[in-house]
C-alpha cells in the first residue's frame, strides 16, 4: 500500500492527468459536485460521498451520437461515429458506483455487444475510493457491497492527512508504477481503522437493517399482480429523475436529427420506462398507465434483473433516488411495501 499526503495530492492528480483524461468529483460554479475533467484550477471534492449524477455518464452519456447518414445525389453513405479513443482515468468512484459498472457490463457487454459502451469502458481506468462518511440514505450494504472496500483497478482511501493507494488489477499496477515515485510506502492499519469507524456509523443508519435479497418474492407473476402498485404509484409524478440519477438504469431512445437536407445524425439519449412515450410504437404505448410504467421500473430492478442475472438486483444502494425524488418515492419504499404486502 502506498500513500501521499493531502498537501501533495495535486501533484498526484497532475501526474495522473498526464497519463489520460483524469475525471474526478469537482464542484461546479453552482455548487454541484459531479465527475469532471480535472485541471489545476479545479478543486477535487473527495470529501463528498456521492456525486450528484452517478458515474455511469462516463460510459453511457446522456446523449451520444451513433452514426451519420449523408446523401449525395442518389448515393447514401453511412458513417459510424465512435467515441474518441482517449484514455480516461476515473478517480474517486465509490463502491456503489463501481458495482454499477459491473451491472451495466452485464447489459452492454453481453451479446450483442454495445460497441460504444465497450469502447469507453475499455479506455477507462477506475480508481475507487472508500467511503468514510456515509449518508443516511446509503444502503449499499443491503446488496452486499462493502463501502470501505470499493475495488476498481486501484482502491484509495482518504484520511485526515493522506490518501492511501492500493493497486488491484494489472492495469492498476501498471498505472501505479508510473506514479509510485510521488508516493511512499504505508501500512494498512490507518485504513483498517477508518473502515471500522465507517462500518460502525453505517450500522447506526436508519437503513442498516434493510435487506432486499430473500425478502422480495421473486415470483414474477405474483409480484406483478400485487395490489401495492396502484397505491404506491399514486404519488409518482412520472418524471425521470430517479432513472437519470440511477447508476444502473440504462434505457435509451434512438433518434434522428436532420442537420441539413442531405445530412442526418442518429443519436441515442437516456430514456426512462416512466416516460409516457417509452417504447411507444405505431399502435401506441404498451404500458398505458402510470401504474404499469411505475411497476415496470421496480419489477425490472427487483425481480426481472435478478432473475436474469444470477440474483444481482439492478440497484446498488447509492441512495440518489432517495435524495432526489421530488415527492420522496424511492426503491426502498417500494421494496418495503412488497415485503409487507401479504398478497405477494
Amino acid at each position: 500500500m502506498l500513500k501521499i499526503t493531502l498537501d501533495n495530492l495535486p501533484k498526484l492528480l497532475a501526474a495522473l492527468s498526464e497519463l489520460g483524461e483524469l475525471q474526478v468529483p469537482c464542484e461546479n460554479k453552482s455548487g454541484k459536485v459531479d465527475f469532471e475533467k480535472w485541471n489545476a484550477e479545479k478543486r477535487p471534492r473527495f470529501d463528498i460521498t456521492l456525486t450528484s449524477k452517478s458515474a455511469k455518464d462516463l460510459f453511457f452519456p446522456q446523449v451520444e451520437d451513433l452514426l451519420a447518414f449523408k446523401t449525395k445525389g442518389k448515393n447514401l453513405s453511412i458513417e459510424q461515429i465512435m467515441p474518441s479513443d482517449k484514455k480516461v482515468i476515473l478517480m474517486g468512484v465509490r463502491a456503489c458506483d463501481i458495482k454499477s459498472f459491473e451491472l451495466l457490463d452485464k447489459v452492454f457487454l453481453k451479446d450483442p455487444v454495445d460497441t460504444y459502451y465497450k469502447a469507453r469502458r475499455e479506455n477507462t481506468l477506475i480508481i475507487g475510493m472508500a467511503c468514510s462518511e456515509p449518508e443516511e440514505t446509503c444502503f449499499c450494504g443491503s446488496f452486499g457491497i462493502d463501502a470501505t472496500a470499493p475495488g476498481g483497478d486501484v482502491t484509495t482511501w482518504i484520511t485526515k492527512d493522506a490518501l492511501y493507494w492500493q493497486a488491484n488489477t494489472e492495469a492498476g499496477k501498471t498505472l501505479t508504477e508510473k506514479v509510485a515515485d510521488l508516493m511512499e510506502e504505508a501500512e494498512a492499519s490507518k485504513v483498517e481503522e477508518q473502515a471500522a469507524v465507517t462500518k460502525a456509523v453505517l450500522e447506526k443508519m436508519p437503513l442498516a437493517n434493510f435487506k432486499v435479497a430473500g425478502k422480495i418474492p421473486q415470483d414474477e407473476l405474483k409480484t406483478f399482480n400485487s395490489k401495492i402498485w396502484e397505491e404506491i404509484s399514486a404519488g409518482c409524478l412520472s418524471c425521470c429523475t430517479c432513472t437519470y440519477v440511477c447508476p444502473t438504469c440504462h434505457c435509451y431512445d434512438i433518434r434522428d436529427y436532420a442537420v441539413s437536407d442531405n445530412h442526418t445524425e442518429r443519436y441515442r439519449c437516456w430514456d426512462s420506462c416512466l416516460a409516457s412515450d417509452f417504447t411507444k410504437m405505431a399502435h401506441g404505448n404498451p404500458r398505458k398507465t402510470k401504474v404499469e410504467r411505475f411497476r415496470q421500473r421496480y419489477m425490472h430492478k427487483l425481480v426481472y434483473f435478478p432473475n436474469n442475472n444470477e440474483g444481482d438486483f439492478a440497484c446498488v444502494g447509492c441512495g440518489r433516488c432517495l435524495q432526489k425524488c421530488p415527492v420522496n418515492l424511492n426503491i426502498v419504499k417500494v421494496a418495503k411495501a412488497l415485503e409487507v404486502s401479504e398478497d405477494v
Partner: protein
Amino acid sequence: MQKIGVFVCWCGSNIAGTVDVAAVVEAVKKIPDVAYAVDYKYMCSEEGQKIIKDAVEEYGLDRIVVCSCSPRMHEATFRKCAESIGINPYMVEIANIREQCSWVLKDVKVATEKAIQLAKAAIAKVRFNNPLHPGQSQVVKRALVIGGGIAGIQTALDIADAGYKVDILEKEPTIGGKMAQIDKTFPTLDCSACILTPKMVDAACHENITIHTYSDLEAVSGYVGNFDVTIRKKARSVKADICSGCGICTEKCPARKTPSEFDEGLRNRGAIYIPFAQAIPKVPVIDREACLKFKTGKCGVCSIVCPNGAIDYTQEDELITEKYGAIVLATGFELIDLENYGNLGYGRSKNVITSMQLERLTNAAGPTEGHLVCPASGKEPKSVVIVSCVGSRDTSGRGKTYCSKVCCMYNAKHAMYIREKYPNVDVTVFYIDVRTPGKGFDEFQRRAVEEYGVHYVRGQVGKIMSDKEGNLTVFASDLNSGRHLMLNPDLVVLACAVKPAKDARKLASMLTASIDTNDFYVEAHPKLRPVESPTAGIFLSGMCQGPKDIPETVSQAGAAAAKVIGLLAKDKLMTNPCTAKCNEQICSGCLTCTNVCPYGAISGVEKEVVTLNGTREKRVVAVVNEALCQGCGACTVACPSASMDLQGFTNKQILAEVDALC
C-alpha cells in the same frame, strides 16, 4: 412519394430580367420529390396554365409550386387552375420571386440565389399541404346600414329597391345627417333640404327599410352572411307609436338652456326636442340630462301638454337583436375640435364661427331665418373673412395632414351666397391652394371671383384678435405680394377640417374593420375594391372612408349597395378552409384559446375522445366553429400543448419553411 411540380414564371422581363429562371428550374429539379420543373414567359396566361395542366396529367403531379408574382396577385388564379385539373386548390404554394426578389434586387446572381431559396421554402411547405375543403354558410338576406345620413339613406334605398330588407341604424333622434344642416349645395346652389328630405321620406316609407333612430350598435358577432347584431334603442321617453309629432311639448318645455346640436349651438333647444322640422321620425326625444323632471323630479310639463299621453318617463333602453348578411358603414364625419387653434379666436369671440354655423345662419329654417348676422351683435356684418384649411393639410401636429376636400368648394359657395344676398358685404377668402377638381367646380369658383367679386388672398391667417368691444382684427400674410395684412372683419368663418365620426374607432373594433391612423375606414383595395372593408361582409359608404362631397358620397353609396346586393343575391357562401383545428386527442380542455379568439369561434365541448393510450375518455375539449373562424391563428400560440393548429399554416408547414430558409 410526393410528386411536386414547380413552375417558374418569367413575368415577361419582370422576373426573367433579374432572375435566371432556367437556373431556378435546374436547382429545384435536384430537390427530392420534385417530379417536374419548367419555366414559361407568363404562367398566369392561358398558355401558361395549360403547361401546368399538361404537366399534372403527364407526370401525375399532386402538388404545385408556382414561382411568380405575389400570391396576393395570382394565388387564386393558380388555385383555380389546379382545381380544374382535379388537384385540391390548397395543394398550391406560391414562391413570390417578383415582388420579393426581382423587383427589389439588381444583381442577377444574388436574385437568382434568393429565388431558388424562396422556391425551396415553398417546396418545403407544400410537402405538408393537405387538401382543404371550404365549408358553406347561409346568407341572411338582410343588410344593416350604420348611419342615416345621405350615404346611409342612399345605400339603404338602393338595397331596398333591389328587393332586400335593410335596416338603418342612426345614433341621432332623426335621420338626415350633416346634409340636413346644409343650406345649399355646390356647384348648383340648389337647396340641400329640397333634395334630401324627399329621400328621407322615401326611406321612411319604403316597405323594405326599417329605421332605428336614437340607437347604438351594442354588439356584433358572426361573419359575412351571418352577422348577429344587437342594437340598443335608447329610451326616447316618448312613445313613438302614440306621438303625433305636433311639437307642443317642445314649445312648452321650460328647460331651454341646451344649445341645439342641429343649429350648431346658435340657439338653444328644449330638453324635449325634435332636431328640425322635417325630422324622421318626427317624434321628440327627451334629453334626460337637461330635463328638469329627470334632474329634480319636478316639472312634467310635456306630459301635461301632450294631447296623446305619449310622454313616458319610465321608458328604458331596448335591446333588439337581428341577423344580417351584410353591414354597411356610413357613419359620416364631424368637424374637428378647434382647441388647438386658439390663435384663431374661436370660442373667445362669438363672431368667429365655423362653416357649418354659417350654413345655419344662412339657412331660411335656421336660427336667424336666413338673415346673415354677427352672432355677438345680431347685426348684419359689413365684411367677412373666410379662412381655408383650418386643421387641414396641417403637418404641424395640431390638425390633420389630409385635405378635407370639400372646403374650397363650400368656401366659394359661402362667399357667393353672401355676396348674392348682401352685395355690400365684403368677402375675403384666405387660402393655401384652391382645389377645385370636379365637374363644373372650377367654373363655380371662378364665378365667385369674377362675377361676385370675392377677394381671394393666397396666404395664411396667423392670428385673430378680439378687443373688449368684440371688434376683430385678422393678422394674415399675403404670399403673392409678400405683405402682412391686418383686416377688421365683422365675421370670420373658419373652414375647419373634417374628421371621421367619434365612434368610428369603437365601431371598427366591434366589426373588426380596419381603420387608418386618422380613423377613416380602410378599403380592401384603394383602387379595385374601394367600397369594401378588408373584413368580409363589411362595406363602406360616404365620408367615413375619406373626405368626399355629396355627389361622390351618393355614387359611393350606390356602389356599396351594389356590392351588398351582390352578396345578398347569393344563397350560400364558401367559407375559408384555412381555419384552426383542434387535435382532440391531446387537447387538455384548458380553453386558453377561447380567450384570444376574436370571433368567439372556439368553445369547450364535453365529448368522448380517444386518449393517447388508446382508451376512451369523456372530457372537455376545444371545438372550432369553422364558419366563425377567420384563421388568424391566435389560438395556436395560446395553446400550451400545441393541440390547436391552423390549416394551411400548420406548425409543420411554417417550420418547414423556417428550416428551408435557414
